[in-house]
C-alpha cells in the first residue's frame, strides 16, 4: 500500500513538474516610434506558436510581454531584471532596438539566462553575454556582403554612399564601404542624413550633381523610403544609368506601396522578403495573413525564427532551461526557415544565413523585390574578425 502511494505521488510529482510552464520574458517596443516593428515581431511569434503549438518537451510555453516604449536602455535593463527576479522567466527574448539589447545583455550574463535577440542588428550586441543567440540579421553581414557583390558581380566600380546619421547608418556605411573597397571599388563621396529627415530633395540633388555610377543608401523604415523614392523621381535620377543600391528596409512592402513606380530598378541586399517563393514561406505568409490581416516583414521572421530556435533548443535539452545547457544546445543549430537555410554559429552564437540580391520589378502588375542572385551561409564579418583577435 505504501509503495503504491509512493509510486502514485512520485508519478503525480513528476507530471506536476512536467506541467510547469516554460516562461519566456518578451521585451519589445510596443508603443512609441518603434511600435510597428514590435507589433510585427510579436505577430511573427504568435504565428509560429499557432503553427507549431504552445507545448515543447512536455511543457507549456508562457510568454510574459513587456514594453520599453522605444529606445530606453535603462527601462529595458530594468524590465529584463524584473522578468528574471520577479517573474522567474527561463528565457529572455525579443529586443527590437540595439541600446535595449546591449543593456539587457548584462542581465543575461549576470543571471546566466538564455537570451534570444530577435531583431537588434548591431554586431557587438552578441558579445554582451555568453548565453545569447541572435535570429534576425547583423548589419555588416548584409552590407559588407552587398558591397563585395556590387564591386564584383554587380559590375559597379564607383559608389556614392548616403546613410542616416545614426548607429545603424554608420555601421552600414562602414560595412558596405569595406566590402566595396576590398573588392576593388572606389568611394567617390558620402553624405549623412539627419535622423528626422522628412525630405530628401536637397541630398538627392547633391548626389545628382556629382553624377556617380551608383548610389548606396541606408535609411530606416517608416515614412522615409517613400520620401526618398519621390526625391529620386522628382530630381530625375535615372536608375538605369545610376544604379541605386539599398538595404531591404528601403524596399519593404509599405515603402514599395508608397513609392510606386519610383521604386523600379532599385537593387537591394537583404535576408527576407514576404514574397520569397518556397513552401515554408508560403505557408508562413498564409497563416500570418489569416491571423493578422497583413503581410509579414523581416521583423516578423526574426520573431518566427527566434521561437523556432527556442523550441528546437528545448527539444534538445529535454525541457532543461538553465543557461549553460541551453546555449550548449543552441550552438550550431541548423534549420530551414521561410527565409531559407539558416544556422547559429557555434563560436559566435550569431545568425548565419543567405543574403539575397534583389531588384524591384513589376510582376503581374505588382511591385516586388525579385531575387536574382544570392550568397549562401553568410557569417557576420565583424564577428569573424573578432574571432581572430
Amino acid at each position: 500500500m505504501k509503495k503504491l502511494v509512493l509510486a502514485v505521488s512520485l508519478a503525480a510529482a513528476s507530471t506536476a513538474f512536467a506541467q510547469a510552464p516554460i516562461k519566456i520574458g518578451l521585451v519589445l517596443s510596443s508603443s512609441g516610434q518603434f511600435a510597428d516593428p514590435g507589433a510585427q515581431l510579436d505577430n511573427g511569434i504568435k504565428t509560429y506558436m499557432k503553427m507549431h503549438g504552445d507545448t515543447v518537451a512536455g511543457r507549456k510555453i508562457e510568454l510574459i510581454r513587456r514594453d520599453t516604449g522605444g529606445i530606453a536602455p535603462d527601462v529595458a535593463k530594468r524590465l529584463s531584471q524584473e522578468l528574471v527576479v520577479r517573474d522567474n522567466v527561463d528565457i529572455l527574448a525579443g529586443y527590437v532596438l540595439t541600446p535595449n539589447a546591449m543593456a539587457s545583455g548584462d542581465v543575461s550574463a549576470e543571471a546566466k539566462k538564455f537570451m534570444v535577440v530577435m531583431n537588434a542588428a548591431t554586431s557587438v550586441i552578441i558579445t554582451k553575454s555568453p548565453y545569447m543567440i541572435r535570429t534576425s540579421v547583423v548589419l555588416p553581414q548584409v552590407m559588407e556582403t552587398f558591397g563585395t557583390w556590387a564591386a564584383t558581380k554587380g559590375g559597379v566600380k564607383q559608389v556614392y554612399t548616403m546613410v542616416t546619421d545614426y548607429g545603424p547608418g554608420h555601421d552600414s556605411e562602414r560595412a558596405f564601404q569595406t566590402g566595396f573597397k576590398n573588392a576593388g571599388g572606389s568611394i567617390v563621396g558620402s553624405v549623412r542624413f539627419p535622423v528626422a529627415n522628412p525630405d530628401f530633395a536637397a541630398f538627392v540633388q547633391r548626389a545628382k550633381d556629382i553624377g556617380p555610377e551608383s548610389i548606396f543608401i541606408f535609411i530606416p523604415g517608416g515614412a522615409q523610403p517613400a520620401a526618398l523614392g519621390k526625391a529620386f523621381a522628382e530630381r530625375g535620377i535615372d536608375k538605369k544609368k545610376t544604379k541605386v543600391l539599398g538595404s531591404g528596409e528601403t524596399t519593404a512592402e509599405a515603402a514599395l506601396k508608397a513609392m510606386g513606380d519610383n521604386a523600379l530598378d532599385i537593387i537591394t541586399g537583404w535576408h527576407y522578403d514576404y514574397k520569397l517563393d518556397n513552401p515554408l514561406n508560403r505557408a508562413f505568409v498564409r497563416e500570418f495573413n489569416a491571423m493578422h490581416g497583413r503581410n509579414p516583414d523581416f521583423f516578423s521572421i526574426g520573431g518566427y525564427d527566434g521561437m523556432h530556435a527556442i523550441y528546437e533548443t528545448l527539444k534538445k535539452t529535454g525541457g532543461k532551461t538553465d543557461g549553460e545547457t541551453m546555449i550548449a544546445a543552441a550552438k550550431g543549430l541548423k534549420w530551414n526557415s521561410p527565409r531559407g537555410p539558416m544556422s547559429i554559429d557555434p563560436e559566435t552564437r550569431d545568425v548565419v544565413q543567405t543574403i539575397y540580391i534583389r531588384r524591384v520589378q513589376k510582376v503581374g502588375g505588382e511591385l516586388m523585390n525579385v531575387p536574382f542572385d544570392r550568397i549562401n551561409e553568410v557569417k557576420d564579418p565583424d564577428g569573424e574578425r573578432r574571432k581572430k583577435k
Partner: protein
Amino acid sequence: MENGRPAASEYFQRQVRWHPLEYAVWLAALLPFVLTPSHLSLASQIAITALFALSLDLLVGYAGLVSLGHAAFFGMGAYSAGLIAKHYWGEPLSVLLISGIFAGVLGYAMSHVIVRFRHLALIMLTLGFGLLLHEAANSASALTGGADGLQGFKYTSVLGFKFDMYGRAAYAYSLAVLFICFLVTRRIIHSPFGLALRGIRENALRMPAIGAPSLSHLRKAYTLAAVVAGVAGALLTQTTSTVSLEVLSFGRSADVLVILILGGAGRLYGGLLGAVIYMVARDQFSGINPQYWYFWIGLLLVAVVMFLPNGILGGLSALYKKTQ
C-alpha cells in the same frame, strides 16, 4: 515679535519646520525595501525621476521659467558619469559630484542667454538648445557612442554595496541622494533667495525696484537646477551602467515637465508625487496592455486636470481649503 507682527526670521523658521506629514512621506519611502523587494529597480528609477522633477520645479515652480529642454543637464550629468568611469575611475560618489558640477557649468553658461526671455520664446529656446545638444551628442558618436549608447564602463558598487539585479543598493543610493538634494533645495526655497525667486515669478518688473537683482537671481536658480538635474542623470548612469542618447531627448524633457505639472509645480513635493504616480501608472498600464497603455495615461492626465487644477497637490490643497 515687534508690534505684534512676526519678524522675517521667525517667518522663515516657521516655514522651515517640518510638518508631521513630511516625516510620514519620507518614512514611507523606506517601505519598498520591505513591502515590494522585487520592485526596487523601479523604485530607484522613480527616485531618480523625482530628483529630476525637483530640479525642474526650481525653474518652473519657483523661478517661473518654463523649460522644455531640461534633459540637456540630465544628459550632461549622465554622460559625464559614463565617460569618467570609462576613461578614468569608477568611484560613484566623487563622480556624482563632478558630473553635477559639469552640468552646473553648462547651466551657468546657458543661463546668460536663457534668462532674458519669457513666454513662448523661453520655452522654444530651451527646446532648441536641448535639441542642439542632442544632435551634437549624436554627431560626436566617437566620444558618446552615438545612438547605440556608451559602451565599455561599469559601476559595480557604491560604498561597498554591490549594484545587483535586485536593485537594493541602487534604490538605497538613489533615495539617499534624493533626500540630501531635497534638504538642500528646501533650505534654499525657504531663504531670502527663494522668496526673491517667487517674487520674480509673480512680478518680474517690480523686483529690481525693491533691490532684488532679477536676472542674477534667475541665473543662480538656473545653474542650481542644472546641477541637481546633472546629479539625477549621473545617478541613472551609475545605477544602470548604461547611458545612451535618449537621456538628452526631447521625450525626457517633455516627460519630466508633464510629471511636474501632474504633481503640482511650486509645491516642493509636487515633482516627487508626480514621479511616483506617473511612473507607477505607466509601469502598471504597460504591463497590462503593452500596446495601448498611452491611452490610460492620457486619460489619467485629463482626469487630473479636470478635477484637480494646478496639479494633484494644488487640487488637494484647494479642496482642503474648501473644507476649512
